[in-house]
């Protein structure tokens, strides 16, 4: 028979836990709204950018710009985007499982997020850079990350650059996605319906094709990485909110069970006491 005092103590501690997870849930919910808005706000822009790039891609050949040129892939660079903090359900685990399945010999990693870097260090992967980004990163901050990857690609150290991040599907669902960004190829830039209106017609470039490609292709890469990191942040906060909500619910269930057990124990002890008293009375009478 468990001691009533022990049960009381457990109820109290579980209630405390519930209070903390509830608070974390609230914080994550408000951060999530902001992060989701930030991630969604960029969609029209990337849509237009994608469309432009798709129509542009038809008019230029691989040789026109180093970022379009696909080389035989010997080394791959993977930008691993994870969260800095835990307590967000299976979010990081899912992403890291994906990372673990990559061939460790031909893959080098660039990490953003403490969970990812500690995983890479623990499993002895080849991590060439680790970037710390704040909760809501600006374009300039993520540009430092994407610029690093871009330079590695241009210098020929790696032949492919991809990003592994938790894609935001909706508040309840986040999916780890490995997306190859460089070299920029036709099928990678699409993602929206191909618009046939522009192909075939001659495009005019001002000042000239080289200059425009030189500006728009790196920009496309930087912006896509920025967008992905924002999405990863939205995923993180959503996952945390959901995880904390289920933790709070679980804690409440435990409190309910424990309270029942406590009441039973209390009643049992009262019954025993009553029995003792009546027995004593009967013995005296």
């Amino acid at each position, binding site marked *: 028979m468990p001691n009533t005092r022990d049960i009381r103590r457990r109820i109290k501690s579980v209630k405390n836990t519930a209070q903390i997870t509830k608070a974390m849930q609230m914080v994550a919910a408000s951060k999530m709204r902001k992060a989701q808005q930030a991630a969604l*706000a*960029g969609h*029209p*822009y990337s*849509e*237009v*950018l994608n*469309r*432009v790039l798709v*129509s*542009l891609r038809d008019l230029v050949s691989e040789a026109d710009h180093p970022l379009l040129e696909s080389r035989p892939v010997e080394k791959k660079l993977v930008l691993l985007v994870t969260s800095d903090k835990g307590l967000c359900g299976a979010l990081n685990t899912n992403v890291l499982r994906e990372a673990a399945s990559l061939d460790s010999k031909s893959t080098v990693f660039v990490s953003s997020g403490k969970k990812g870097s500690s995983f890479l260090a623990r499993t002895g992967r080849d991590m060439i850079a680790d970037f710390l980004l704040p909760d809501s990163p600006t*374009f*300039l901050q993520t540009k430092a990350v994407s610029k690093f990857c871009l330079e590695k690609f241009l210098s020929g150290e790696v032949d492919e650059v991809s990003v592994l991040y938790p894609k935001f599907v909706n508040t309840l669902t986040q999916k780890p996605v490995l997306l190859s960004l460089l070299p920029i190829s036709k099928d990678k830039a699409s993602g929206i319906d191909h618009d046939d*209106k*522009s192909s075939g*017609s*001659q*495009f*005019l*470039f*001002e*000042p000239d094709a080289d*200059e*425009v490609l030189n*500006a*728009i292709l790196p*920009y496309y890469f930087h*912006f896509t990485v*920025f967008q992905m990191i924002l999405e990863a942040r939205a995923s993180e906060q959503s996952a945390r909110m959901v995880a904390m909500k289920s933790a709070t619910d679980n804690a409440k269930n435990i409190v309910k069970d424990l309270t029942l057990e406590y009441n039973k124990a209390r009643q049992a002890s009262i019954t025993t006491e009553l029995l003792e008293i009546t027995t004593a009375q009967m013995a005296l009478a």
Partner: protein
Amino acid sequence: MPTLNLEIVTPEARIFSGEALMVTAPGVDGDLGILPEHMPLMTQIHPGELHVTTPSGDIFLAVGEGFLEVLPDRVSVMTDMAESDSEIDEKAAEEAVERARKAMTEKTLSGEELATVQSSLLRSLAKLHVKRRTHR
């Protein structure tokens, strides 16, 4: 009267989407006036004033750096800033110009930083330009 489909987007939002009769954009090689049925064109734009003539009136926007894609029936403007004159805070823009000028004369900035300050100076100047033109 033929119209073209104009879309102006920034990383933060879709600023404008709709019909336009004419678009005048600050291209790298000078201002570009675009009418419907323009030849397909792809160019960069500089901080400056974007003038849109719509069937319901004129719109002036201060835009930052970006890209302009022109198709016979569609114009897409991608830029890092697009503010109409009512959104521009003249005083804040003036202060920003002052700060940027100071930073460029005083400090010895390097590469990326200098480019950032320069582009922010050009953006603020573009804002002031748009703001003041409506005052005249």
